[in-house]
């Protein structure tokens, strides 16, 4: 059983999805998906444990040896991502039953869980697999289910957002497909480990450069990296709250993983950063992204939009850490990956609770919520503080590592800009606080009550995780460091 963990990780939710379709009663489907996701979480925990103690796990599909067969290769980086995805998925799913009750027509509930599980399985698959083409397939499964999930939003704009995302996403995925094809052409292999050995031999060819460019641009589209982020705000804002919470916490993380995997492992550090002006490009785009997106967030009137822009800004931080291309920088990125999942998971889930009670996430409707929904609002405030990077929250931990990594590299102005970026976070977080706590409640909203427990429990689980991992950083820092060192030490 233990040896089969890597495949079980993916196959359980993947099989659960069609089985879910057979369950006619939505409540049953919910419980079923919760169990499937919980199992995935359990497995990812065991995998991480195993990887941290005994190193990379290699699982050969059907006993076929790589590079002929497909292999699943779990090192520290994969294991961390698997844990983030399955954990957040499980916590978010906990609130799903209550949330979609209000946001999605009853006859689509079962279908919702099917799509959710498919999306989860595909994301886990992207991370777990060691085969480049497999990545593409899983990427498309996750994207297709994502388009459908987003289109389930109440607002008709959800359809339009989903359509736009579909166009952008398909272009991105096709770019990746072209890149993979070119790589295959040059090396005759699709196994990522094998690629990393064979690519250096042909590194100085135009084909490989082209392949690299296609892959990176494709991933950056998926990543919503500035300036390729235009699809994200609407997709997040109009999707059902649960979907937003799930994607905000996981989807972009998977794309970051791909970026790291392809640049650091497959193409190799020396190719990615020495031969190309990638460092300058990424650090500039990352910082511009932080400022443009944070400024945009300040002017949003819909809180979901606001946090969506904030997500783009946070991606900017991860890109900056990534572009340093040192072990410390990568550690910072991975830490922020983990921490940002916790923050945004908590925030968007809390927004789901607000949506559940008042049916809108317009900032103007937040008036007086500080008194009417004190527990939910407290969660939003703490999540916001974490976003700003106040000590004792996870946001501080990532900021500390990121700034330290930047300074170690001698990039003083970048350090200043990173910190200045968090000042913008203060502004947009405090806009919400001021409306919620200082404006009197709107007329006719006196009956609004605190969100139900099915929301408060997962929200506060994440909020407490925000604080816990801000104080006890052993797990997150250790794993992130181990992952980044393994990327720098030996090739995957």
């Amino acid at each position, binding site marked *: 059983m233990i040896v089969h963990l890597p495949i079980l990780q993916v196959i359980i939710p993947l099989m659960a999805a069609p089985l879910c379709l057979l369950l006619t009663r939505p409540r049953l489907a919910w419980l079923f998906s919760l169990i499937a996701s919980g199992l995935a979480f359990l497995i990812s925990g065991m995998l991480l444990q195993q990887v941290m103690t005994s190193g990379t796990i290699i699982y050969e599909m059907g006993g076929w040896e790589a590079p002929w067969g497909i292999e699943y290769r779990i090192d520290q980086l994969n294991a961390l991502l698997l844990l983030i995805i399955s954990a957040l998925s499980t916590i978010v799913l906990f609130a799903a039953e209550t949330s979609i009750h209000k946001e999605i027509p009853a006859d689509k509930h079962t279908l919702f869980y099917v799509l959710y599980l498919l999306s989860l399985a595909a994301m886990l698959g992207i991370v777990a697999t060691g085969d480049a*083409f497999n990545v*593409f*397939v899983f990427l*498309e499964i996750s994207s*297709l289910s994502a*388009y*459908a999930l987003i*289109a389930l939003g109440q607002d*008709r*704009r959800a*359809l*339009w957002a*989903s*359509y736009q995302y*579909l*166009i952008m996403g*398909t*272009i991105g995925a*096709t770019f990746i*497909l*072209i890149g993979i*094809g070119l790589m*295959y*052409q040059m090396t005759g292999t*699709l196994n990522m480990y094998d690629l990393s050995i064979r690519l250096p031999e042909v590194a100085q060819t135009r084909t490989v450069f082209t392949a690299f460019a296609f892959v990176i641009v494709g991933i950056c589209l998926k990543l919503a990296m500035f300036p390729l982020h235009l699809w994200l705000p609407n997709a997040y804002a109009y999707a059902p709250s649960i979907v937003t919470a799930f994607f905000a916490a996981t989807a972009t993380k998977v794309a970051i993983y791909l970026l790291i995997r392809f640049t650091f492992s497959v193409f190799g550090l020396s190719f990615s950063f020495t031969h190309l002006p990638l460092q300058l490009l990424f650090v500039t785009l990352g910082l511009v992204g932080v400022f443009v997106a944070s400024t945009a967030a300040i002017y949003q009137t819909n809180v979901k939009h606001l946090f969506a822009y904030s997500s783009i800004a946070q991606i900017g931080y991860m890109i900056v850490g990534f572009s340093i291309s040192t072990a410390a920088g990568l550690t910072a990125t991975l830490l922020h990956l983990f921490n940002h999942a916790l923050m945004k998971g908590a925030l968007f889930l809390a927004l789901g609770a607000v949506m559940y009670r008042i049916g809108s996430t317009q900032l103007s409707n937040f008036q007086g919520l500080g008194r009417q929904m004190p527990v939910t609002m407290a969660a939003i405030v703490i999540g916001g503080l974490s976003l700003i990077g106040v000590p004792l929250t996870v946001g501080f931990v990532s900021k500390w590592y990121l700034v330290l990594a930047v300074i170690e590299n001698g990039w003083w102005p970048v350090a200043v800009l990173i910190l200045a970026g968090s000042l913008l976070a203060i502004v947009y977080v405090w806009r919400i606080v001021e409306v919620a706590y200082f404006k009197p409640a709107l007329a006719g909203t006196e009956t609004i009550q605190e969100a139900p427990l099915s929301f408060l429990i997962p929200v506060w689980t994440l909020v407490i995780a925000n604080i816990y991992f801000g104080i006890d950083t052993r797990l997150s820092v250790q794993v992130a460091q181990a992952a980044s060192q393994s990327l720098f030490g030996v090739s995957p």
Partner: protein
Amino acid sequence: MFIGLYNYWVVIVLMMVGFYIVIAHGNLIKKIVGLSIFQTSVFIFYISMAKVDGGSAPILADEINQYSNPLPQVLILTAIVVGIATTALALALAVRIKEAYGSIEEDEIQKQDNLD
């Protein structure tokens, strides 16, 4: 050079045509058509690269001793399936958008959204 690699030229032309349609056209259906052309160009690209001159299908027979690489063709079968799924989903979305907005023109949809 040109003749020898003509299928790659076809790939590039199709790719650009498809990409241009996606970007330049406001009609949602036309965008989907463009997207399909774009994807198809990649399918052709994969198949082209696997073809070995004079090679045959990989069948174990005495008279055949030069094979084309079958793997990219298998891969592209998967990609075609994905492409069809994408197109179907996009068309379904277009239908829903038509129902919700009464139009499938990008600028009209934007206009209605801005009014809200």
